[in-house]
């Protein structure tokens, strides 16, 4: 995976998740950050920090990105969400428009 094809997502605790750009773009919010012509810092460094999203939730979000890509390409599996994560994940998903 080439570096320019990836994007680094950083959680509130500072954990870094390197994901494929296509996967990250499942989030409309991240897509806007990466593609907007205004020259966000995020666009240049390929890094996005989420001070509001904990590591556990961000990890789940990344898993969802990949699941969503697979789902879109016709692979119908279920995306498991533990009930204790639902509230925080819901808010993160709402923020990320995903």
């Amino acid at each position, binding site marked *: 995976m080439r570096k320019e094809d990836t994007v680094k997502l950083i959680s509130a605790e500072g954990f870094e998740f390197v994901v494929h750009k296509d996967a990250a773009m499942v989030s*409309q919010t991240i897509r806007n950050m990466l593609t907007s012509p205004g020259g966000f810092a995020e666009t240049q460094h390929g890094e996005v920090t989420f001070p509001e999203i904990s590591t556990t939730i961000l990890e789940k*979000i990344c898993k*969802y990105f990949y699941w*969503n890509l697979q789902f879109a390409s016709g692979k119908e599996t279920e*995306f498991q*969400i*533990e*009930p*204790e994560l*639902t*509230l*925080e*994940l*819901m*808010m993160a*998903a*709402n923020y*990320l*428009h*995903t």
Partner: protein
Amino acid sequence: MESQLVRLCIEAACQSRESVEKWRRQRRSLERLPSPLADALLRCLLSRRLLFPSLLEVFKRSVEKVDLRGEHSVDGEWMAYIGAFRYLRSLNIADCHRISSSALWSIAGMTTLQELDISRCMKVNDAGIRHIVTISTLEKLCISETGLSADGVTLLSSLRNLSVLDLGGLPVTDKALSSLRVLTKLQYLDLWGSKISDKGASIFLDFPKLSFLNVAWTDVRKLPNLSSLECLNMSNCTIASILEGDGAKATLRKLLVSGAALLGDAETLIFIETSLLTYLDISNSSLHRFGFLPCMKALEYLDLSSSMIGDDSVEEIACIGANLRYLNLSKTRIGSTGVEILAGHVPNLEILLLSHTSVDDAAISYISMMPSLKDIDLSNTHIKGIVHQVDPEMDPALSLTSLQCLMGLERLNLEQTLVRDSVLYSICSFKELTHLSLRSDSLTDMSLYYLSSLPKLRNLSLKDAVLTNQGLDSFKPPTTLRMMDLRGCWLLPKDAIVTFCRSHPQIEVTHEYVPLFPSDHIGSKRPYPSRLTLKTSRVNEVGKVPISPFFIDQRLKYSREELLALQNWSSVSFDAPHDSDILAPNMQ
């Protein structure tokens, strides 16, 4: 609206009582929950029957909108929790019959509430209104069919911010209405069935912003000119004049005078600017001249059912046909000649209702010249589905075939017509048809065979048909089929229907042998035992009322010999219809 992951999260959160227990202690997260998410979560919990009063507490800092319409369990305890909702903007507890005046005490003095609907909470009376008038922020209040008296209505005058007020079915008198004069922000006022008379009608002039007014079923005969009015309902009134008076004519968009007795011709009674009128309901009215129609060029919705209109007045509809989307001519003297006049003049017509008229197969080719049609009702007409050719040597032509050119046709109703099995062959090529209704005792298993090839059929109603268990067994329903109404198909034995339901769980079948409440998947997880007992008691009632009236009719139509013949023809496992009254209603 909601993104996919949000929806998955809400689903997961409302999976079961156990999953609710997993998140309901996460206080910090719950307090941060944005209100649209909290509202959606609350809605889902309610629809899954997982909501109970003490769970409401977790939403007190997030939810802005609560809709508990028709929930029988909602009572004072629920209201006590809802009263503590810090940001509540809208509360709908219409049809919650356990709500009493004292239950409303909990929401007295709320500072954020703008919308409140307690329609048909019959236990709420004037004492309850005293709690409501303490909520000075209210802008929308619906209290129709509650236990309020005219005195209670006068108390509402302190709610100065009201713009929507529904007082339907309340004994509002002219005097009570006069005390509401101060509500100058009113835009929407519903007073159907009240005791308002012509004297009270002059009070409407004090509401400068009034755009919606409903005075159906009242003694109002003369309505003064209200130039701000856009929508008026005077159904079932005796009308002497509408909006007559000085000043600019009201530019009405919607007028309903269904069932009204007009004391003269419409032109001389109705004083409105007709060029913007889009919705007109004059069904059941006493009008017999329709010369006013040609000026209503913007009409999209026109209901003339049960009126005196006949083929001689259709010309008047044709000249305003350009924008029409809905046209109801049911129970009129319209015949095929009338339909012929309309053809070619209604390019945008989507819904055409001709039920209980004298139209026959000649009309069908004209109907097929109305290109936008989506929904056609031809029930209770003389339609046969075949036209006999001039030359008696030639085979008769199938008239319904010409409807094939209606590319958007989704619904077709041919109940109580003379259509027979062989004619349905011409329907099976209707690509977009989703709803089909048939009802005739001359239809048999052949119909099912033809209809199985309709690619998008979702609702099929095949009432009173002589279907057998072999026919049902060999029926291959279209994959899209979700509802099937087989009421009155008396020849079908119970086990044939049960087998069909089992092998096609996605199809909801209606028949005398199918209980009203089939299987209850989440029964064991119900939080409210009261609801469960209510349901079981209803199922028991079904047992007591075993046969519907027309089921008996069916049997009376045949002699004993005919019935026996049919019985042999059907199957060996035939359940005689009269057995149904001892059948247990449970069928899991």
